[in-house]
């Protein structure tokens, strides 16, 4: 069974919030009794709800500069959180607090969001705020009919919370899906792809950051190959998802190209390790085992003998949407691990922890040091200096691969936003697709057709850059939604897309 994701927990939060607002009886006396009972249960749950709401909001990885719009909400929630109430909390309010607490825990180690990630961070925060606002409005509704409680400070305090939440809640409905919805507490070693990736990432990160001594060069090279394999396999899975129609084809194509580029980048990084440049001993057992698990898992999913598994066969092995979520989690893990790899290589190079046979040292100065000449004669190994071509190649290929991993993660994150997210003027934030020239686009279209076994885009779109196709499809979706009379709020928000927060 897959672990709950932040997105699923937040969906549950919305369901609980929806059911909070119970209809009150027509008769005044009955209405008063029921409202008093509900209000008392709500109030008993509010301190913890506010506390967990704060926990979740603080865990959303927005940079400090983007927090100004909740600056008044935070103290309002803190006041409610510090106001203990006797009694038994309403089970739905208590459940909402649990859910917010769990979301806060899941998002706690997400790095600060910048660029396109900021939009997703705002999206996830909007869902948290929506839950808090709904609870506040429901409680205030009961307090209106509960004379005894309405004379307390609660209506004022909750009113402040609701007002501030509402002011902060400016994310249109169509923009409320994003990468943070995928965040889940995946059990290490869980036999799902997500579990295998989580275990591999943990073991590999530990191997790349040893508590003592230098990391094993074999382990570091193994990490680069694994990152390449994961990117290559991700390309196959995304291609399959595009083929069976669960994602927009243009967005899928951009992600496939980005993953393939990342795979090449990691292949180059792995190849930059000559067999005679070494550090540390053998790779750690944990890393080797986790790496083997990753390889077997990917092998079973994307390889069919000597060929890639067809999209239809992949769909028969795994739910395409679940696989896509795993790919996004994998891309996030790969990006972070990539940075760890880069730090590790940089550290090995700059501390001169790598060694090389003296006779393999390349001459970079007119005169070779006498110590080196002596070492050559004795067949010794010497530290690899940071200026040697082998060393600079290691750091350069690591930096390039990390950049390509980030591009791939950004490109595949677009698939987490559903079709609604395309309903905006700005193109999908794929650096890769944004760089496409017309010629590259034609090649890409041809490649897509070859890979997917389908025709390329229609004649009307075949020569347009991917980003334009995406934007045009996005507008069409938006217009259709508006024509259908999609919620006034969503249409209104789409028209008033002001830069905010």
């Amino acid at each position, binding site marked *: 069974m897959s672990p709950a994701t932040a997105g699923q927990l937040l969906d549950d939060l919305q369901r609980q919030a929806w059911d909070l607002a119970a209809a009150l009886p027509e008769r005044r006396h009955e209405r008063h009794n029921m409202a008093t009972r509900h209000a008392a249960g709500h109030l008993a749950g509010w301190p913890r709800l506010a506390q967990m709401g704060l926990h979740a909001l603080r865990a959303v990885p927005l940079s400090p500069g983007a927090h100004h719009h909740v600056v008044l909400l935070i103290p309002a929630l803190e006041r409610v959180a510090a106001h203990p109430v006797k009694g038994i909390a309403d089970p739905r309010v208590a459940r909402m607090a649990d859910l917010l607490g769990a979301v806060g825990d899941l998002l706690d180690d997400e790095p600060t969001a910048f660029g396109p990630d900021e939009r997703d961070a705002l999206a996830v925060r909007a869902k948290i705020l929506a839950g808090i606002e709904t609870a506040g409005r429901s409680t205030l509704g009961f307090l209106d009919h509960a004379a005894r409680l309405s004379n307390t400070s609660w209506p004022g305090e909750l009113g402040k919370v609701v007002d501030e939440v509402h002011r902060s809640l400016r994310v249109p409905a169509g923009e409320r899906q994003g990468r943070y919805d995928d965040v889940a507490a995946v059990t290490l070693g869980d036999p799902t792809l997500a579990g295998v990736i989580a275990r591999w990432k943990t073991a590999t990160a530990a191997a790349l950051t040893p508590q003592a001594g230098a990391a094993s060069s074999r382990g570091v090279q193994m990490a680069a*190959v694994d990152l390449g394999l994961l990117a290559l396999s991700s390309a196959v899975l995304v291609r399959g998802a595009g083929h069976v129609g669960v994602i927009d084809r243009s967005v899928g194509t951009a992600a496939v190209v980005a993953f393939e580029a990342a795979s090449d980048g990691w*292949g180059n990084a792995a190849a930059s390790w000559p067999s005679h440049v070494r550090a540390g001993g053998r790779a750690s057992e944990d890393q080797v085992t986790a790496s083997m698990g990753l*390889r077997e898992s990917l092998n079973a999913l994307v390889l069919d003998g000597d*060929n890639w598994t067809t999209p239809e066969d992949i769909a028969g092995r795994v739910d395409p949407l679940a696989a896509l979520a795993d790919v996004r989690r994998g891309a996030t893990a790969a990006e972070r691990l990539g940075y760890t790899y880069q730090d590790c290589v940089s550290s090995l190079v700059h501390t001169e922890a790598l060694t090389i046979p003296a*006779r393999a040292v390349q001459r970079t100065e007119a005169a070779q040091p006498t110590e080196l000449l002596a070492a050559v004669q004795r067949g010794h190994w010497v530290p690899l200096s940071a200026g040697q071509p082998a060393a600079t190649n290691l750091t350069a290929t690591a930096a390039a691969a990390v950049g390509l991993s980030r591009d791939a993660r950004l490109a595949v994150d677009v698939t987490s936003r559903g079709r609604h997210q395309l309903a905006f003027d700005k193109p999908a934030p794929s650096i890769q697709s944004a760089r496409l020239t017309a010629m590259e686009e034609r090649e890409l279209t041809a490649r897509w057709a070859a890979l997917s076994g389908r025709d390329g885009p229609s004649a009307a779109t075949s020569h347009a850059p991917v980003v334009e196709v995406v934007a045009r499809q996005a507008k069409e979706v938006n217009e259709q939604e508006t024509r259908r009379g999609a919620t006034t709020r969503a249409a209104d928000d789409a028209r008033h897309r002001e830069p905010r927060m």
Partner: protein
Amino acid sequence: MTTTEQLLDQALGHVAAATQAMLEVAKNDAPPRLMFTARQCLDVQTLLEDAGAVIDIDLVDQDGTRTPHELLRLAAAALDAIAADERPVLLAPARAELQSTIAASSPV
């Protein structure tokens, strides 16, 4: 006469050269399995080192005239040349993994 140590080192040199060759061509238009096989080669290298092999820069084929598959077969031949009573205890797992890798790298 070639010693057991030399044969082990030769085998490791061939596998290292095969790994490098695979990684250098493991691009998107390469056969799907190639990067998986390159990763498997790293396991073979580790197992050979566990069996006592040491990398010798002179034994790593760098002229690029042989295919990875041929290099792996040369490695297997080197291991098979070790006398039965001279085989290190940990050689068998390395050879088994090497045979599996040779099969995976087969061009046909």
